[in-house]
């Protein structure tokens, strides 16, 4: 359930006149990704996690909760919560 703002921000269409490429499908592939281990583990059978491989959230592109707004979130459990569309992360969209 993506918010309207999320969709409109992230999913602008790329124009050809007859062929439109959906922006969200243009995947990020940077050299650093191959040594990164920040995102959630996933499970295709939904046994124990909230995400499949394809719906994993990249924490590099979210506000880093460990370096975030220290005045508001420092030392709170919420500051250590990441990876899912919580009220906290949605508020940042």
């Amino acid at each position, binding site marked *: *359930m*993506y918010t309207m703002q*999320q*969709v*409109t*921000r*992230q*999913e602008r*269409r790329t*124009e*050809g*006149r*007859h*062929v439109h*490429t*959906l922006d*969200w*499908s*243009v*995947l*990020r*592939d*940077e050299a650093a*990704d*191959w*040594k*990164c*281990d*920040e995102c*959630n*583990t*996933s*499970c*295709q*059978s*939904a*046994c*124990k996690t*909230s995400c*499949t*491989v*394809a*719906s*994993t*959230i*990249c*924490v590099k*592109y979210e506000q880093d*909760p*460990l370096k975030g707004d220290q005045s508001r979130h420092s*030392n709170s*459990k*919420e500051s*250590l*919560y*990441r*990876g899912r*569309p919580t*009220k906290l992360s949605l508020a940042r*969209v």
Partner: protein
Amino acid sequence: MAVPPSYPWHAFDYRKKHYLVDGGSGAVHVLDEAAAASWEYLSAAAGGSATPDTPSLASSVPGDLVARFGPQLAAEAWQEVVSLVLARGRGAHADKADANATAAASTTTMAATATMPAVTGSVDSLTRSTPVTSGGLAEPIRIGTPLKALCLLVAMDCNLACRYCFAAPDWQRHGARRMPAETARRAIDFLIEASGPSRFLQIDFFGGEPSLNFAVVRNATEYAYEQCQKRGKAVNFTFTTNALIWNDEIADLLNEYHFQLILSLDGRPQVHDRLRRRVGDQPSQAQVLEHVHQAVEALKDKNYWIRGTFTHCNLDFANDVQYLYEQGFRHISLEPVVDGPQYPWSLRDEDLPQILAEYERLADFYLRQAEKGDPFEFFHFRIAPPTGPCVARRISGCGAGYQYLAVTPEGDLYPCHQFVGREGMRMGSIFDPDAAQRFGPRSPSTAGGCSGTGASTVSNANPLAERFRRTHALAKAECRQCWAKLYCGGGCTANAHQLTGGDLQATLPFFCALQKKRTELAIALRAELQSRMHTSA
């Protein structure tokens, strides 16, 4: 639309819209009628092989396309589709000038029935996103990444006796056991040490039924949080339960630490109660449903999933999703049962057409509810969030066996919760003196990986973990050629191991078919909703 096999293109239709997935890069293109007809013509004329070497690319705009769409439209659409294929031949981001030049050159080599106009759209936008290469197939990937998640099997015991349970054989053989608090704390120490410089950790409480040992869940949660704070790491928690036990103590802990809650509920009473029986063979659905309502109500963050299983006994499983929706739940997952062919509830090949049709029915329901303004999440229709995963993540799959391990009540390590007890799959113990080193980050000098404390060398790395690092999607021949690999990650290794008698690299055609169908629908639903939002904006 036809499907050329030589490059992993995949064309499909949904609700009269034409989609073309570039399986080499994951990019999804929406084609209008003229472009779809061009694609169909191109792939058919090439004998199903649309590559830059395809002779059709050098031909003029086909006459029947011109007749159908007129010279201008047909030429534009043809050129845009040809540009896609040509760009894939270069295997890199194509710039507009280059693409224009190539396309124009190719179209002047034969007599034209229509004049090729200048490209009107942005060709580079159509061709971006580099195909994932298949180099280094035998090599492990994400070499430097250490362990970052543990599944703690805090209770190998259960108050239900579900017929299809993959875990129950363990305590039927070895007796019911509970994980001592000290073992849970030791496991957390192991995770923190092995994780090296990684900052984000995950701990899943699983079983059996973890609520049967909730004191240890509480103790381990508080300990993990405290230790991670000291080390500057973040940790999140999940709790997978059958909800037969639910109380304020559980709710309070899950809220305090922002747990993700996975609640096992199969759907309609007759479906749930057929296979999810209590130990004394009584039905459980009514009690479970009441507790699930309480749990969802109690969760402040609403971070829950209703996780059901469908079997041969309820091939009309879209009705169960609808039932769960009507109960008020908005995060729903319904998974195919995985079990041997000897069981009456197991899925069979002949069930496949009905299951695929049922996913379509589910997609229609999903779309209808979204249109009504009361949407819900279906686990497998949820792809590519705004901050989605990178290609490396998609290729490497779930990380079982090296980024993620399961821990038994005795401290034994397995690649994931589904591997527990399987012969030859024990990966050591958290009590092994060098356990953390064996699953820690690799040394830069030996593997070119990341740096950090406790770096292991190739020689002392866990050999089974090294095998799991090689089970990525590009290492499997079928996956390399598959258009859906970047949405699937190569499938579930545990299922492959179970159903093939031990092959970690196997792919399962039946489950691949389900995955492909779900991926098609997920792509189309995403595009459909996006389109409607743009229209209404």
